[in-house]
């Protein structure tokens, strides 16, 4: 019996009520049901990081969560983090440093980088590389991303 189950959650601050099949993962729920396609699917086995979102304030692989597990949860996607302005300075640094090329890894990368910046005030380059080591990028070779995160950390410290 795999009938749809009701879930009620908040996505980017907005209340969402839905009926979902148990096997629907959070990434597909966001993309296909809510049309929030900024969360990308790159592997579906939890390795590439393209699907990274925030659930209850913590970064997770949305391809490794079931939508039914987000009942009563607060989910934030790249669209929400962009609209709230929370990562505006990080996005500006990415733009100025060209820390993205095709852009497919970028939503997950920004969310993972912001996660580091929230937890640590002065991450050095090695620490940044370590925290982002679960987000695959094929285009940039990573250096520009590390530069942009480092610049943002420095600027936030200066505030």
């Amino acid at each position: 019996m795999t009938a749809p189950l009701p879930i009620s959650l908040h996505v980017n601050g907005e209340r969402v009520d839905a009926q979902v099949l148990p096997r629907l993962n959070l990434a597909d729920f966001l993309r296909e049901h809510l049309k929030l396609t900024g969360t990308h699917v790159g592997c579906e086995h939890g390795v590439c990081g393209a699907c990274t979102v925030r659930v209850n304030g913590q970064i997770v692989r949305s391809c490794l969560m079931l939508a039914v597990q987000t009942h009563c949860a607060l989910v934030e996607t790249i669209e929400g983090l962009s609209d709230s302005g929370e990562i505006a300075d990080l996005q500006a640094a990415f733009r100025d440093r060209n820390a993205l090329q095709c852009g497919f890894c970028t939503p997950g990368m920004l969310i993972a980088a912001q996660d580091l910046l929230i937890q640590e005030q002065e991450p050095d380059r090695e620490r940044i590389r370590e925290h982002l080591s679960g987000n695959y990028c094929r285009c940039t070779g990573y250096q520009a991303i590390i530069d942009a995160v480092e610049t943002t950390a420095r600027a936030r410290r200066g505030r």
Partner: protein
Amino acid sequence: MTSSPAKPETLSVLDRPNSYIGKVVPRPNLERLMQGRGLYVSDMELPRMAHVVFVRSPHAHAEIVEIDASAAKRMPGVTAIVTGEELAAVITPWVGVLSHLKGLKSAPQHAIAIGRVRWQGEAVAAVVATNRAVAEDAAEHVVVKYRELEPVTDMRTALDPEMPVIHPLLGDNLAFERTLDAGTVDAAFAGSDEIVEANFVFGRHTGVTLEPRAVVADWNAAEARLTIYQGTQAPHMVQNIAALHLGLEESQVRVVCKDVGGSFGIKVHIYADEMATYALAKLLRRPIKFVADRVESFNTDIHARDHRCKGRIGVKRDGTIMAFEIDDLTGIGPYSMYPRTSAIEANQVVNLVGGPYVTKNYRARARVVFQNKNVMCQYRAVGHPIACSVTEGLVDLAASKIGMDPVAIRRRNLIADDAYPCASPSGLRFELLSHHAAMNKLMAMMNYDALRAEQAALRSKNIHRGIGIASFIEVTNPSAAFYGVGGAKISSQDGVAVRLDAQGSVICQTSITEQGQGSESLTAQIVGSVLGVSMARVRVILGDTDHTPYGGGTWASRGAGIGGEAALQAAKILRENILDVAAAILQSSPTVLDIADNAIVNASDGAPRIELRELARIVYFRPDTLPPGIQPELMATRHFVPREYPFAFTNGVQASWLEVDTDTGFVKLLRHWVVEDCGTLINPQLVDEQIRGGVVQGLGAALFEKCIYDERGQLTNANMADYLVPMSGEMPDIDVGHVASPTAETELGAKGAGEAGTAGAAAAVANAVNDALKPFGATITEIPLTPQIILTALKQI
């Protein structure tokens, strides 16, 4: 109309005030990508769209005895299940050969296999359903009976008489063979003081684009028109091929490229499952979406660089390189890819070995053999990494043999910077390169002597670091010599149409395409510079065969050099047209006017005369106020094709500094340098980032990436945990410098830069590892350099 070279009295676009050329400016299309508001094909939804999943062969080589889809067809949500035979009524097969690759042979390939499967992962049936999950459920219920056949899985034995011939009608498993004999090779080896030989082995690997291949094909039966949404690098090529094989006119096919999540050549080829998707849309009269999942990608995206190359170098004691010789063997899949062929990579290897060096003595043989493995074809830098690794590896071996420093031997043998134009023994024509200037710059950037001293000091403490150098040449801006001459309908020219709109902003349509390298930005930068319009007012439209000029697209590092020149020339004409109208409005002469900061100004003192916005208003809405007889033309189109040189060669040199843990075999990449010469830099930051990204792909090849097949032709590491791509934790910072030798063939002077990083990175790393291991007398000529290979070479295991 042909475009003529720059008149000497006209200010070159590179000298114009407020020129964007050579400037670091942010790309205009970044906001939407950073907000997650891009539109990738994998994001697309159309009304009544269905999803296709392919039932794929688990065997590398087998007869298809029977396909029973009866149970699957009854499952809810299933629209159709289609076999190869059924689809053959809609789409014809193809053969991946080109006439200029003499002797290249291949067999017809169908969109879905008929009768036989020839690699593990080849599609045998298409399941179309309401969503991907349901289609996968149904695919599990399609019962396929196979009769297994012996697979050909070792390139070294593929031509042995007792091995099965994959395509009996072809006679044997040899797809292509090429030989070259230049200069007097035997005499050169006889005259050498030392001869070194080595067997170079390269791990087959693949692109791993983060967005997998994705297609949405939409056949509108009422309009009899097919719209293909695909992240292809060459939309006009896809248009031509889809039309050809579906029995349509090209005008009935529109190809649209949205945002593309990475390509690197993976998405420039014609894939059977994508052709099947187009055919299914026509057959089922509704939009069909195909998105390869990651496992499918590993099994069916083109692989590349599966080579075993015997190399030989002769050298005199004074360091003079006398001759190069190679015997290269590569094992592709069961088909030569369409339409670019799977012989190009080997052909490039033959062309490029020894390229940076003066010796005229060079002999080569390359053979391409079929195997029952996934198909193989062009991936970023094509044959360059092989040729560079073999050449630079041999040069280092020669240096070692005669006790010469690796930089010294290169300085002795690299073509002099004032020796141009000249040609290589393989017939490559070089317009202007800068091997020595690049090497000098590299030495300064990396402080070579200081690193050598550090290496020596650490060696005494049992810490083993190595320096590896790799000089390289790179093919860019190809003319029709690459594909067109062989009969491929792949355009080697590109076009740009620019117009001033009714508000005085600029709209450009270009036939090059964008996959993240900055095609949109470079076009806007050039047009903005030539026209005197700010970039914020320039909108670029690309990736749509209905709405752009006809062109080749972006591949082989041609977008900036060819598409950029077309943009420049088109903008020059539009500028002239605008000044003609301005002169009429201002009762002046075009020769005393210019355009700057979005306005017509006096050429002499820059004083603004009339805003472009106002000029546009008059032209579009008040032409009655213009002097009699004037017919304003605020749109211009120019195409560009390289005519003089078949390829615009660039050059560069790379260096790797690394440490080998001789206990564990692990390599730590400490730093990497690239000095590159691609002529005029339109946006230095974008060029440097292309180089960095390319380098890291080469580092992946050097240390991590390998498609591991077993002897039965099964790909055993088709997932992101077992196939190792470079992640941020293991990659070094990469310093990039430039020398500039513009090409005289264009006013822009830009050559290509997209593949330079990948061309030389693995060679530099391999040389560095061997340099680090010198005290142990170990030499390794195989990549990826895994800890196991290193420990074995060190005789630790």
